[in-house]
């Protein structure tokens, strides 16, 4: 009995037959820009600030010394009494807050996460031209659910080392084997008569803290 060819083999055979006589496609030209922004760290940081704010993130700037107090103030002003803590978050970042810490070790259940007011994380990098922060689950960032379920996300970006100008400059610095989350402003929808509403399912508030001056 001859076995039936699998769908895999049938589809691949159809694909190959469909293009067998097609001419080679012209080589991909990469003559688009690597960046649209002048190579000036201060200017790139300003652009990041501006574009994050344009998409309704709340942006703050501080120095390493000012960070703990600023984190504490952001949490307090938003009424956050509990804060989820990803593994590897520098302890000093939460040194000044009296919010109750909920470490994600062992993993909080979705329901437990839903009962947490806020989460504080770092990031892998930030993209100025699009106003985007990227998380890759590394130390201090946590798994993906952590920055999704609580209603307030406070994200710390270290400048200049975590800031790039553009998408083409970001991708080579990211590891595709890690789960990546790109965040450009808070959750939003325009599905109802195209009126933009912030916060449908993700955090309704995104606070980004830009820390300049080297932070370890």
């Amino acid at each position: 009995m001859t076995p039936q060819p699998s769908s895999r083999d049938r589809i691949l055979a159809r694909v190959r037959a469909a293009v067998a006589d097609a001419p080679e496609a012209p080589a991909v030209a990469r003559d688009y820009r690597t960046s649209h922004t002048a190579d000036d760290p201060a200017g790139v940081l300003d652009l990041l600030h501006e574009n994050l704010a344009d998409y309704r993130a709340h942006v703050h700037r501080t120095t390493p010394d000012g960070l703990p107090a600023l984190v504490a103030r952001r949490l307090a002003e938003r009424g956050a009494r509990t804060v989820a803590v990803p593994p590897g978050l520098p302890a000093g970042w939460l040194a000044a807050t009296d919010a109750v810490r909920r470490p994600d070790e062992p993993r909080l259940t979705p329901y437990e996460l839903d009962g947490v007011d806020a989460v504080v994380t770092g990031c892998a990098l930030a993209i100025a031209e699009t106003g985007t922060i990227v998380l890759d689950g590394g130390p201090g960032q946590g798994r993906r659910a952590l920055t999704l379920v609580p209603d307030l996300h406070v994200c710390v970006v270290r400048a200049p080392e975590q800031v790039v100008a553009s998408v083409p400059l970001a991708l080579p610095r990211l590891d595709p084997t890690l789960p990546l989350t790109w965040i450009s402003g808070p959750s939003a929808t325009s599905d109802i008569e195209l009126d933009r509403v912030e916060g449908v399912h993700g955090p309704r508030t995104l606070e980004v803290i830009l820390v300049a001056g080297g932070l370890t």
Partner: protein
Amino acid sequence: MSGTFVGMPSFPKAAHEAVGDATLRANLRHATHTIRDKRARAVAELDDWAALREAGKRIKDDTLRHLGTYLVRLEEAVTRAGGTVHWAADAAEANRIVTDLVKATGETEVVKVKSMATQEIGLNEHLEAEGIAAYETDLAELIVQLGEDRPSHILVPAIHRNRGEIRDIFREKMGSWGRPAPEGLSDTPAELAEAARLHLREKFLRAKVGISGANFMVAETGTLVVVESEGNGRMCLTLPETLISVVGIEKVVPTWRDLEVFLQTLPRSSTAERMNPYTSMWTGTTDDDGPRTFHLVLLDNGRTDALADEVGRQALRCIRCSACLNVCPVYERAGGHAYGSVYPGPIGAILTPQLRGTTSDIDASLPYASSLCGACYDVCPVAIDIPEVLVHLRERVAGEGGKGHRLEKAAMKAAGWVLDHPSALAAGERLASATRKLHPKRLPGPGARQWSDHRDLPELPAEPFRDWWKKNRT
């Protein structure tokens, strides 16, 4: 394709009803004009747009030319990363695979990210028949699902509904699907969005199975990419234990680096944003983060037929941004439902007849549901020459039909409908390429494909469309 639209009347009949619906037309007009103006501004921010568009086109053409190689590479990479790859030749097979996978988990409900591929195969209806409830979680899809309705736009599927209608749907229907709408729900978008948040959150938190599509799959790394705004996608992609993604075989891109092109062109073409609020990328499974089991179902369902058509295969470059809908004078008047498939507007007019064939009245009429103005080509971020494919498909329909044939009649009616709507047509003719593609042969000259080079030239073939039509078709 899906059973959802079986029995649709041909384009002119459906379009005729749509034009009679004042709410629909006002909503559509507002939406398409708003989005198209914003898009133009977002695109103008990048002075290398033409180069990005050309790169996107070439990446996709290279992908299609070597699709077999890239699909095998993708399969290897996904498998290496802990995922399982399945191949589905048609809708029935895809539905069967997904149903079996869900049943194997023992679950009877799933949460879904908006996905054209699963709409195309009618997955929700199939799951329902098998006793599995599939919850759409995109706000617009929720509105459509609760309203027992069909999506009418790729990007904003419920654009045909206004806020009062949405409030009524929520009040009447939410209770029978889960958490009811809050008492005294008003029709402000913020309150409506909050009602959706509460209604869906209980589903997200208990969900064990998520179903998604994907915007891109990277052959080199096995990475899948979903772009979205609301966070419902992130919920479905990360909270469940099992994730099943159903993706058309044409969604593959060769390399990680290729994303640098599409992550610049897609958001700006689609929602006119520099970047959409959320993009999720995952490669197989990751310990302690997200689903423990990941299945990728690669879907053919007519795509290899389209691939075999040397003119038509360019439709497979589409990244579903919906920019072509928003500039189309015919779409603006007819609405998405008139196209009788999950792919409305200009892209639907060329993709649907290729995926489904042209043997039904609706599919035979689609290539005629256009004024051939060329605006869709101009905005397309992967430079699909939609007018060229339309003309090509018209020849196919004409060849299958013949004078007085059923299909010929359906086609003529669709063409007649376009001609009967002077504002749709005039909008097209004002764009000077109106006559560019009327003749089945291409315009002479090396620049003929670059219509942007030509659109300011007043001396394009002078014969007005209506005259040409009369001479050639009556």
